[in-house]
């Protein structure tokens, strides 16, 4: 008789191994070599574990390397040193196609919320859904719902050029959340927002977290940091854990 999976040769059942952290960085380094200038280390030997279901915050001064760290963990660029493990898999040697597929499991809210100009907000928010297949009308409905969640349903037909910075920030978050990602990465999601809007954005992150998504956020906002289950501080490219709730 064939033993059930997970049963060792001795026949003693084992407890199933816990799922690996959603993303983990080990000894990460990122060095830039701007043309004609000296090499610059944005991230130096940074290690971080983002467990599933956690709300992790990275704080620190501007220019300290937070955005670069999020880019590395969000598989937007390759580190010059160390490894990134996404769902336990080392993504360094993964093909570009595989890295793109992994990115579909991540919702990234960028600083400044870059949008495709000329497209309406609802089209912008629906764009990440297009390669996943399905009807355009269904994508649109989900995008409208995501915009409604960030309080911008009335502006769905507007173009990004017509929006304020704060509104754009919320559209960026709607785009990050539209695909129900396992990991939400947000870079300074409440910067440049008034208190009420910042509250609303934080509420959305909390909501995503409550629905089971892991949240990784770079922020100075004490309100955001207060939500974090784990906190890191980053300065001059170096990362250190500061507190765990």
């Amino acid at each position, binding site marked *: 008789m064939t033993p059930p999976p997970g049963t060792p040769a001795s026949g003693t059942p084992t407890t199933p191994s816990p799922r690996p952290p959603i993303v983990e960085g080990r000894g990460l380094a990122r060095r830039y070599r701007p043309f004609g200038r000296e090499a610059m280390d944005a991230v130096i030997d940074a290690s971080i574990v983002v467990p599933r279901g956690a709300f992790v915050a990275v704080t620190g001064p501007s220019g300290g390397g937070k955005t670069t760290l999020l880019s590395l963990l969000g598989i937007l660029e390759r580190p010059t040193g160390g490894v990134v493990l996404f769902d336990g898999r080392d993504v360094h040697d993964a093909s570009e196609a595989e890295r793109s597929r992994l990115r579909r499991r991540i919702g990234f809210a960028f600083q400044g919320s*870059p949008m495709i100009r000329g497209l309406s907000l609802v089209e912008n928010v629906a*764009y*990440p859904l*297009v*390669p996943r*297949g399905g009807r*355009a009308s269904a994508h649109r409905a989900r995008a409208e719902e995501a915009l409604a969640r960030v309080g911008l349903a009335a502006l769905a037909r507007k173009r990004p050029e017509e929006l304020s910075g704060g509104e754009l920030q919320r559209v960026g978050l709607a785009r990050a959340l539209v695909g129900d990602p396992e990991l939400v990465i947000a870079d300074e999601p409440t910067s440049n927002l008034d208190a009420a809007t910042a509250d609303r954005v934080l509420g959305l992150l909390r909501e995503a977290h409550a629905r089971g998504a892991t949240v990784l956020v770079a922020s100075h906002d004490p309100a955001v940091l207060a939500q974090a289950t784990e906190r890191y501080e980053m300065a001059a490219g170096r990362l250190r854990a500061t507190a765990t709730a």
Partner: protein
Amino acid sequence: MGSFLGIAATGVRSVLLHPLRSAVTVGGVVAALLPFVAGLGLSRGLRDQAEVSVREGADLYVTGRRLGRDASLPLEAVARVRAVPGVTDVVPRIVGEIRLGDEQVSAVVVGLPRERLPRVTSVVSGRLFAPSPAAEMVVGSALARRLGLSVGDRIPPFYRCARGERVFTVVGIFDADLPVWEANLVFVDLEIAAEIFDQRDLVSSLLVTTSGPDREAVKTAIDRLDALGPVDAHGPVRARVVTRDRLEALLSSGLLHREGVFDLLWLLALAMAIPVVLVTSGVGLAERRREVGILKATGWQTDEVLLRALAESLVLAVASASLAIVLAFVWLEGFGGFGIASVFYAGLDAMPGVRVPFRLAPVPALLCTLMAFVVVTTGTVGSSWRAASAAPSEALR
């Protein structure tokens, strides 16, 4: 399939999203394609005309040869050739260039017996020229328009010959199935033509009609004639005979040669146009990089980004090719192929003043679309691929 169509639809949408970039690309491609489409259309029109001309013409064309060179034929050759078995008809013809009017417009005089005007012509006003000695001519309608001639007008002496000069009268104006004939042909009586060129009792060629299917046998028999007229101090004039099939092949190869030279020049121009299109596709390049960065960062794969660019290229290529074909039609039909017709029609001015024959066939149109696609894809997919190959964070920076 759903995602394939969805991605392609975003590419189509992208054309309208960036009107300046799309307009610059279409403009660059149209500039490269337009001369090619117009040139091919003219070339095909010319070939059609040549085919009609040959089909309506004689079975055999006989010209003279002396000391291995072209020579006029003595008029006696008509009787000698007519005596060859299998020959049913022989028409003597004189062809030569003259210059008319103050502008010295080039025209071709064709001297024929009055009753032997080509079937593809029809006199639209006036009448046919009277037999010699009347100095009368029938002029092509386009040439008449250009020189401001109408029936009854007199043309001052335009040649010198041993028998003096004569004032000609325009007695008729003709149209032809072959529009270029209308542009520069003048029909006169055979004897009058001989007088114009001061070549009494000589003709340029003979148009021979045969009875049986074996044209080659008749050709050989004419070739073997010892002499086509009395042998003078310069020796005999022998025949050179070209069959209709051979003439068709010669015309076709001549046209293909000209078309080939044109194609080569165009390909060189296109080779130069590709970098131009690459540069023009650089209009909005930063925007494209940014867009691709956003797409990649939100989970699009490189091949999906390229499919989007390919759909955009296809729309731009079809738009460019369609516009090039429409503009080529306007150029040839509305402006008489200004500047390009003279490349294919020797003797035509830059502004031909006649409806130049052309045919915009489906195959060149498809070829044109394909070329447009190659050119546009080189620019659009190339730049998208470069942006998609970079890390998304690089493209977003």
